[in-house]
């Protein structure tokens, strides 16, 4: 399976480990991701929050590039990038006036490429993840965190439901780990206010982390660099305000899948998180010695 790949700005810097882990799991899952040449930033919140057409035109250019470079589908691991690409696709398809204005602005036709979120892609590959899992993560309890832009607004949602999605849980079960049931899965973590209004981020992310801890999660799994930085990078500040501190490792879904596929945790970038993942990794059995990958039988 060949697919276009739109990393987005943060996967080259603050979210490097997301890109690294993605890079090492696509091979075993027989997915070839080809980075779109000369992609630009999708504008995230700042573009559409201040100028509707800008918020659609920037991602539309990426759709056009992907189409020109022969990609029908574009994997957008970052939830915000996925949402903006989907918004551009929908605007061009459903609103001729905006479509015309966009094509005038980007100076080329948008083509027919469509974005797909990483959660959707991994859910579709879940049987393969289960089959290829070398290191089933039996007793690891995982809190799946979707946030907003993976599931809302409803018309851009590419998962199975807006209010009760299960695709992340499907992937987590495929790795052998056990998803816990908790309430804050779809709440907002504070998103783009990470720098400009950190107090809101701390308040919102705290309720999320406390709920995950209350549900007995060993690790919080996310699929969005903004959520990750708010829940991981800001966790120290949250720990000061939450009685009993806070020490839940926050990792990307691709890292969890990588672990299950037996990839080395350094290659997965598990060392790059602010909240140490050491204790969590130590509890994971190494790949079954001596058994070849094919023979591994997963419960």
């Amino acid at each position, binding site marked *: 399976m060949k697919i276009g790949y739109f990393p987005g700005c943060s996967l080259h810097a603050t979210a490097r480990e997301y890109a690294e882990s993605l890079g090492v799991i696509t091979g075993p899952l027989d997915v070839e991701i080809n980075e779109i040449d000369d992609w630009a*930033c999708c504008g995230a919140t700042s573009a559409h929050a201040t100028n509707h057409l*800008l918020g659609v035109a920037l991602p539309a250019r990426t759709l056009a590039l992907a189409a020109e470079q022969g990609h029908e589908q574009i994997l957008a691991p970052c939830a915000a990038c996925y949402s903006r690409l989907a918004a551009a696709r929908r605007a061009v398809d459903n609103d001729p006036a905006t479509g015309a204005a966009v094509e005038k602005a980007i100076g080329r036709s948008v083509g027919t490429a469509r974005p797909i979120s990483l959660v959707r892609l991994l859910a579709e590959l879940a049987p393969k993840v289960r089959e290829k899992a070398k290191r089933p993560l039996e007793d690891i309890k995982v809190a799946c965190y979707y946030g907003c*832009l993976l599931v*809302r607004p*409803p018309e851009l949602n590419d998962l199975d439901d807006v209010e009760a999605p299960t695709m992340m849980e499907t992937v987590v079960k495929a790795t052998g780990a056990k998803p816990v049931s908790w309430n804050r899965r779809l709440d*907002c973590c504070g998103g783009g*206010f990470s*720098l400009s*209004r950190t107090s809101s981020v701390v308040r*919102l992310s705290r309720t999320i982390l406390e709920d995950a801890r209350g549900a007995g999660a060993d690790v919080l799994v996310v699929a969005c660099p903004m959520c990750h930085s708010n829940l991981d990078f800001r966790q120290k500040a949250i720990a000061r305000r939450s009685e009993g501190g806070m020490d839940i490792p926050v990792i990307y879904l691709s890292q969890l899948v990588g672990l299950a596929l037996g990839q080395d945790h350094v290659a997965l970038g598990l060392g790059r998180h602010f909240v140490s993942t050491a204790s969590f990794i130590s509890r994971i059995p190494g790949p079954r010695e001596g058994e070849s990958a094919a023979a591994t039988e997963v419960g």
Partner: protein
Amino acid sequence: MSIPESAAPATLAGEVRRKTGLNPATCYQCGKCSAGCPMAVETSLRPHDVLRMLQFDDREQLLSSESIWLCLTCETCTARCPNSCDPARIIDCLRETALNEGAAQPPRNIRAFHNAFLKQIQRSGRLFEMGLIMSYKMRSGALFADVMAAPGMLGRGKLALAPSRIQGLEEIRRIFDACTRHESDSTSTTTAQQNPGTEGAENA
């Protein structure tokens, strides 16, 4: 076709309807959007208050309000609105209108962030986090925020040291110009000095 009074062209609601196709009069003030709004505790105008003021054309108070800038665009209100009024899209449009009419009064940090963010895209096509943080600090004056984090970021290889420029930078500039011009054609007032897109370009 007679458009209901509350959304007549001359009113702000009429303008919102023309730009977004959404009719603020469909909101029957049930409060479900504000019930689910994560920023309701920090704002004076919650989503249903915004719709109410639109229905009664409180133009100045609405466009100059700080609340419309404290929206996380998390789309919870839009996902659960019984009448599909799409408050998120309406609030997006209000911010844009406020900027175009020079009435916008976002909190300094948030204006700084948006401007820094968009200027970064214009400069290199992609976000260069170090550049973003520097540019944000200059504009917001929050010089010491997260300073302690820098070593942690560097140590974990999370800070690219140089921006990665794209070839199609000219295209990006053209997109920004087209979108800003598109703004001035469609808004009643011509001046667009407040729009961050252009401001970023001035003192590149």
